């Protein structure tokens, strides 16, 4: 059975939960392709537009494959007060891509996030599920090296 069908088999609940289903699809495929919407809708017994509506609402859900590592760079107020904009500019320069984009080598996707609850170590960024603090222009290179592979 194809991976999508396998996931959907586990998601057929009453009542259906579209968000939880899309999260599981994304955990398996890395993203939720637009082309998968009808199959998801059919499996859950809802309309295509129900699924597409949820898919487009949440920042976490993506319709394009991400890079190997997703960097979620914090632009919350504490990080702004600690110079996050300078760090962000440095990281964009280093990666050669802007917020919302993926590097050419598909290694990193750069996104913004509003607060990781790590404000005592602002500015912060989360790479995958690792939360990092004091992400400063001068420490960026070392940090990204940890995720080179």
């Amino acid at each position, binding site marked *: 059975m194809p991976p999508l069908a396998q996931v959907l088999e586990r998601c057929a609940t009453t009542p259906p939960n579209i968000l939880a289903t899309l999260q599981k699809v994304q955990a398996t495929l890395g993203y939720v392709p637009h082309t998968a919407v009808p199959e998801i809708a059919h499996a859950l017994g809802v309309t295509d537009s129900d699924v597409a509506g949820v898919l487009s609402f949440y920042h976490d859900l993506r319709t394009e494959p991400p890079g190997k590592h997703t960097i979620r760079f914090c632009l*919350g107020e504490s990080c702004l007060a600690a110079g996050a904009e300078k760090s962000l500019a440095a990281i964009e320069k280093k990666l050669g891509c802007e917020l919302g984009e993926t590097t050419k080598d598909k290694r990193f996707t750069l996104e913004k996030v509003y607060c990781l609850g790590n404000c005592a170590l602002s500015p912060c960024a989360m790479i995958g599920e690792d939360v990092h*603090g004091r992400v400063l222009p001068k420490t960026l290179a070392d940090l990204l090296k940890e995720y080179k592979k």
Partner: protein
Amino acid sequence: MKLYVPHDTTAVAAGANRVADALRKLPGAEIVRTGSRGAFFLEPLVEVDTPAGRAAYANVQPKQAATLLKKKPTPIAQIPFLAQQTRFTFANAGITDPLDVKAYGFSALDKARGMGPQKLIDEVKTAQLRGRGGAAFPAGIKWQTTKDVQSPVKYVVANADEGDPGTYSDRMIMEGDPFRLIEGMAICARAVGAKKGYVYIRSEYPAAIRRMRAAAVRALEAGMLGPESFELEIFIGAGAYICGEETALLESLEGKRGMVRPKPPFPAIEGLYGKPTVVNNVVTFATVPDIILRGGAWHASMGTEKSKGTMPLQLAGCIKQAGLVEVPFGLTLEEAIYAFGGGLPKGSRFKAVQVGGPLGSVFPEALLKTRICFDEFIKAGGILGHGGIVVFDQRTDMRVLARHYMEFTADESCGKCTPCRVGSTRAKEILDAAVKGEATDEDYALLNELGDTMKSTSLCALGGLAPEPVRTIMQYFGKEFQKRR
């Protein structure tokens, strides 16, 4: 020998895992991973037992591990940041293994099981417990409402979508003392007659999610949860600030777009799947066990006239000693920032402080004497919200900050009501122009008007309060907006 090393997100970001690995190599060392006490400026903070209680080594680096124990640790009681606090809700954070059921005890739930539902609600009412999520609504009234509705199915939901930038108290409870949240929810379920509950956790908190899931399993094994009493499920959000609003949260929990529902009906009467639902913030639930154990009157004996108990303040931004401060309501902002936070770092001068998150206000130095409680903040033109305090220094361009708030709202508006959806985008455009020095007096008049419209006609607090930080910035730092290109 037991060595206590925090496993909290911020402690780990400061290097606590590497320190734990290094300490593990010491002969006879038994590493106990704990939550954090919240003195984040001291992390990684390694603790040992002494005859006089716990003592700590601050800012430990892995290379210091081999010789660490030869040095004299500082007794916790001699660390002013911690010694000046009144810890109840955060009493275990940083002290115990968060997943040790025996150490936690669940004594409040045991006691609650011997009390009638109405007696439990009466204690919460006596305690005058107000919601810690931001709205400060009396928890006892909410619980009573749900209890009084006749329905075979009811729900209890913990709002762990801690979205206000600059706050982390919910995260610390979930990572450092998850059973306290579970116990508070189980007591609530018993009081209102619910058998099923959810913790809705934001996806930005992976460590809290892991810890809560593990804690729910252990609580079930220990008989504190169960199909006959109270079943608990962990639900993960998907990166939408609006889902911290209780009706949007319920929509999201049902798997839909996180769009706000008009109120009434209130969730306490028609909530999840249309059933009566208590939605409380994590800290609110975590305050309940102590209220049941010590009595509502004990809780009501602390704080100010209308803000009872303690509040976990979260210091962040341009501040020397960032961290969590649990104190009875009533101290001033100045005391929080200087007596606890140690003031600003070298080279920084105070310029402004954000209180109450992105729906709160930006206060100037002149308002630092404001006492920290719900009512004084409202009088001063702000809200205490979830207790976040973010300090800005002289380098902050207030126009850029104002634009940030509107960009945040434009990003996070659910789009259901026009004033918030369109108003935030239009206001952001004006502030874009302001940053460039191109905004005119007419633009600012329009900005004011947009703010008033959002305030009076938005469906929920996001649209209704989002103009506040901008309004207060213009009020106190208006001069900066007169700069024209």
